[in-house]
């Protein structure tokens, strides 16, 4: 029995997106599709216990979910006449005549349609993220609510509103054409990246890594790469996530405190993930169509292969930030570049850069600006100015582990400042 439960759980993790995407094509409605797919997973427990786990669990689940959908649709003619979710007419199977088959290859793979619909630009970013977790990853509403620290009814309402908009506004269930693809794919990648960063640095609360979101984001990117192997930015994003996540074990100490890159125990880094990430980044660069994720991955891989911050190829890091700024002119990128500049040209030059960036309104309230300023001032032994900057950074930090780190640095510079004034 436990074995069967495990098989169903595995199929949930691996096949949910495929099963839901194929069922949505029949139902023309996400709510009904979700219901039928959930029923199929419940039915699987009994059926697989009785008959054994099928050779192709995904095909079995899809067939079962689609049968349920067709039954319901036959009974409810009114509902059926609405068929709200649009599918390309040329590939739309007629629900009543569709022949169900055990052959997985005969079931169209609609996962890309599903992802692009969930990340449609007519939906707000927070709705895109919630829909992707619910419909593509099969995460339950209470779990999504917990991950984003909102009350469950709020998350449920957000999902309902988004699905209602898809239906009422006729957001089409299709993969965008070549002309719109770059922009639409970028939205999909942004959603996945946001999932990752939310898990990686929980914006508030005590735990620095919400591992489940990180794993979901990586799995989602792997799936996307399998479906779109020729898109260098998908490759670049997977590389970036793997290379960043490879450092997971060293980012916090035994007590959950933040450990900065410089002090991380590099023997804890996941070498296999680093190797895979590097290969993917190289693959993305080889296409000659380099985007922001591939460049960020290249920067991450320079850190990943260095034995220490002292032996990191900082000149190359700065050069890659220059490339990144050309593709993606963002003040946050410029700020990160300044950190690398400090390692090449010294903290004084970097501080000038940071002061200049501080005048950019877009960075107002960005917690890493005063944090970076503080660190540069500390290295320049301007302890009183550093203390002031640390206080500003602490006021903006909402992650407990990060705040604790900043507070310990503040105590250090306050001590140094006091030592200097008493010692002369």
């Amino acid at each position, binding site marked *: 029995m436990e074995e069967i439960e495990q098989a169903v759980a595995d199929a949930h993790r691996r096949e949910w997106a495929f099963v839901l995407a194929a069922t949505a094509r029949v139902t023309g409605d996400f709510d009904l599709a979700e219901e039928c797919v959930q029923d199929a997973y419940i039915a699987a427990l009994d059926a697989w216990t009785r008959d054994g786990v099928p050779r192709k669990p995904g095909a079995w689940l899809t067939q079962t979910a689609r049968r349920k959908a067709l039954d319901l649709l036959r009974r409810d003619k009114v509902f059926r006449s609405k068929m709200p979710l649009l599918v390309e007419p040329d590939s739309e199977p007629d629900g009543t005549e569709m022949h169900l088959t055990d052959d997985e290859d005969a079931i169209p793979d609609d996962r890309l349609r599903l992802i692009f619909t969930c990340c449609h630009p*007519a939906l707000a970013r927070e709705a895109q993220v919630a829909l992707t977790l619910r419909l593509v990853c099969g995460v339950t509403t209470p779990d999504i609510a917990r991950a984003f620290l909102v009350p469950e009814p709020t998350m449920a309402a957000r999902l309902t509103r988004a699905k209602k908009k898809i239906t009422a*506004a006729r957001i089409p269930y299709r993969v965008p054409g070549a002309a719109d693809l770059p922009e639409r794919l970028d939205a999909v990648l942004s959603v996945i990246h946001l999932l990752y960063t939310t898990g990686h640095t929980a914006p508030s609360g005590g735990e620095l890594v919400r591992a489940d979101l990180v794993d979901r984001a990586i799995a989602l990117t792997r799936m996307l790469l399998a479906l779109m192997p020729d898109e260098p930015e998908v490759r670049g994003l997977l590389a970036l996530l793997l290379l960043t996540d490879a450092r997971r074990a060293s980012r916090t100490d035994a007590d959950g405190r933040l450990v900065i890159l410089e002090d991380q125990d590099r023997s804890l880094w996941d070498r296999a993930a680093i190797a895979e990430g590097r290969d993917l980044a190289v693959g993305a660069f080889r296409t000659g169509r380099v985007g922001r994720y591939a460049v960020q991955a290249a920067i991450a891989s320079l850190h990943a292969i260095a034995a220490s911050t002292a032996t990191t190829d900082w000149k190359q890091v700065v050069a890659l930030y220059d490339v990144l700024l050309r593709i993606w002119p963002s003040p946050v990128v410029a700020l990160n570049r300044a950190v690398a500049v400090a390692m090449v040209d010294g903290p004084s030059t970097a501080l000038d850069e940071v002061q200049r960036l501080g005048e950019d309104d877009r960075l107002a309230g960005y917690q890493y600006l005063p944090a970076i300023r503080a660190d540069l001032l500390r290295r320049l032994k301007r302890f009183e100015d550093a203390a002031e900057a640390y206080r500003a950074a602490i006021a903006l930090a909402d992650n407990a582990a990060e705040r604790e780190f900043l507070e310990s640095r503040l105590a250090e510079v306050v001590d140094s400042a006091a030592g200097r004034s008493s010692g002369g």
Partner: protein
Amino acid sequence: MPQYAVIIHSPAPADPMDLTPDYVALLEGYGPKVAELGGTIVTGFALEPSTTATSIRGDVVTDGPFTEAKEVVAGFFVLEAPDLDVALAIAKLNPACIDGGVEVRPLFNPPA
């Protein structure tokens, strides 16, 4: 085929008599583009300037548009399009988007 209201917002007071010749020329070229992209304009209206509007909230009657903003509703049309992607592609080309913007909103279809 689904129908959408495309509501046009232009800088107040959005007087149709003050449209520049350039804008009028763009409007004249708009119809053919709509058809080219696979849509049909079912009906549409331009409104007198917002200085002629009167608003009623509860039982209070006031002079002016319902919401105070830099842009006001200048008109609307009903667009028939196969899906939101097509509707948005068409709406984006409307000259109102140059100095104002449009809201695309599906018409309500009462359930059968």
